[in-house]
């Protein structure tokens, strides 16, 4: 069970701080796969990274994160270390290049485990078993990353990241660089790993709503560093309440087509700059329903069980 409240993460730049996460609160239950979607640059990866390791330029501004009732010291790199890999883990956006190119994979894993005070040899059988679940033979452990295909590397990273049965797994764009067949395999593997209890909760970041519709229990939509809407997958797909969610879905011919790139054809304009975001609802400039009240910031509130929205007009929609 992950609980995030009012998390604020900014990037330090010479031009000022980029408010990539500006007060987000949500929870992911045990056994829940939560999809995370939104236009490029809205802060999805920032959220994912914040939960495991802040990069050099990321600045913790405020908020709290609790995992299984225990507070995660995400602002303290050292104190956070014991939680990494064991409690929180990540399959990064760059999984293709996440393995040291000059080490045999098995040796690298052993060295990593040893550095975390574990014995590679005792974990080896489990490692091989999990590789087998994803259709990989133990041979891959004797190979260099360059000898594997992209999808194979992705799967190896997935097995390695979840080897210690973490409570939370963040999977960032794990399918976007793959061909359709590999995408299916990797997406299936995520569910499989959850079902087998290797991972309790998952946050799956993706641009591919089709994948989310298949595997996610709930979907969280972000816009410009803020949360727009969170609801069970069916609700998001069938009865979205936030105008942005509706446009996001409506701008696609049907659920199942990837949205990506900078502009969505159905939504005019661009997201606001996160250097100095506008006051009030951040979607105001592009929202077809904007009205006077939208100069005030809409709170992220529950309009139905498990359905939260940040929009002054949300209620009307949910009903309509």
């Amino acid at each position: 069970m992950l609980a995030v409240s009012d998390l604020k993460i900014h990037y330090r730049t010479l031009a000022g701080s980029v408010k990539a996460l500006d007060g987000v609160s949500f929870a992911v239950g045990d056994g829940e796969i939560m999809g995370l979607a939104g236009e490029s640059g809205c802060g999805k990866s920032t959220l994912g990274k914040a939960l495991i390791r802040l990069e050099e330029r990321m600045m913790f501004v405020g908020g709290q994160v609790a995992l299984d009732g225990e507070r995660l010291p995400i602002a303290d790199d050292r104190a956070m270390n014991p939680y990494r890999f064991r409690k929180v883990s990540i399959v990064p956006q760059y999984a293709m290049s996440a393995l040291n190119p000059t080490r045999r994979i098995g040796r690298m894993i052993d060295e990593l485990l040893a550095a975390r005070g574990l014995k590679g040899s005792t974990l080896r059988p489990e490692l091989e078993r999990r590789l087998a679940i994803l259709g990989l033979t133990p041979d891959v452990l004797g190979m260099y990353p360059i000898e594997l295909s992209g999808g194979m590397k992705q799967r190896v990273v997935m097995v390695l990241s979840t080897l210690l049965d973490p409570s939370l797994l963040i999977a960032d764009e794990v399918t976007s660089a793959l061909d359709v067949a590999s995408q299916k395999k990797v997406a299936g593997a995520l569910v499989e790993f959850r079902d087998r209890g290797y991972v309790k909760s998952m946050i799956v970041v993706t641009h591919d709503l089709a994948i989310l519709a298949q595997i996610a229990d709930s979907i969280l939509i972000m816009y410009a560093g803020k949360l727009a809407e969170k609801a069970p997958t069916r609700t998001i797909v069938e009865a979205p309440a936030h105008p942005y969610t509706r446009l996001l879905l409506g701008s696609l011919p049907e659920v199942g087509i990837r949205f990506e790139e900078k502009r969505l054809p159905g939504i005019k304009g661009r997201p606001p700059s996160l250097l100095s975001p506008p006051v009030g609802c951040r979607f105001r400039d592009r929202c077809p329903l904007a009205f006077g009240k939208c100069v005030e910031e809409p709170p992220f509130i529950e309009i139905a069980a498990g359905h939260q929205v940040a929009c002054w007009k949300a209620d009307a929609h949910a009903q309509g």
Partner: protein
Amino acid sequence: MLRYLARKLIIYLLTFIVAVTIDWAIPRFMPGNPIDALVSRIALMPDANAALTSYFMAAFNLDQPLWRQYLNFWSALFHGDLGRSIMLFPTPVTTLIGRALPYTLGLLLPSILLSWYVGNMVGALAARRKLLDNSVLPLGYLLTATPYMWLGILLAWVLGSTLGWFPLAFGYDQSLKAEWSWRFIGSLLYHWVLPFASLFMVALGGWAIGMRNMIIYELESDYANYLMALGAPQRLVRKYAFRNAMLPQITGLALQLGAVVGGALVTEIVFSYPGLGWLVLSGIQNQDYFVIQGVFLFIIVGVLLANLIVDIVYVVVDPRTRVGLQGDAA
């Protein structure tokens, strides 16, 4: 792996052919017809005897068609014949090179290898410690920007001429007989220090900067980020980064060879050190073209061989070349 080496071999072979062709063509096709000018000048020189003039004519095979001249050139080359020196006629150029070579190698090999090793260590340390970085980086750029001969001149001036700690010139004390005695060896070493130090220092800067930049690049790479996200200690991440940053430095070694050899030549000139650089200088001053051309070919062969050795080492240390999926690593 074999494909990788084969490709390299082809390139080196081609390079060798091109170099020999350049060497053959330059005196013949340079504007102003240098050979004619030379022949007439030698013939006019009072101390130039008939033997020299006729040797000169024969060496260039001027009476034969060009293609024959070219073939003869190659055939002489394969017989190890680089011609005869004009200034020390009739000493073969190979003899002169053989005499000078130990001095040049004695300077080059230690300074290249040591500067590479020390530079990499210093660069790796600098990438880790901000304080050290702030001094290593400017100093490194300063050193790489320094012309080899100028650092040599400064060292000779301060440590040799002003303080008198080291000799200013020559490979050994000229009053000693060249023999394998302890005194002679001591004198050799004593004369070797300054030229070695100046070569070493200039080369050091480049390696240190290169290593520092490479390590910082590696530490920002995806695999380093992933390892750190999984809570790997700095120790492990740095170990990988260092190893991976070494690889481009190995190929860099091959690429820098030519420049360092040039540096060695001028450093020798500063210190009147009796190596190839000094030989080339006297060749230039006496218009002894056979010597210049001989040294040229010799350097080419040496650099190509060194490149080949570096390649073989590289194949051993970088698994990516062995897998055969190698892109463009050189």
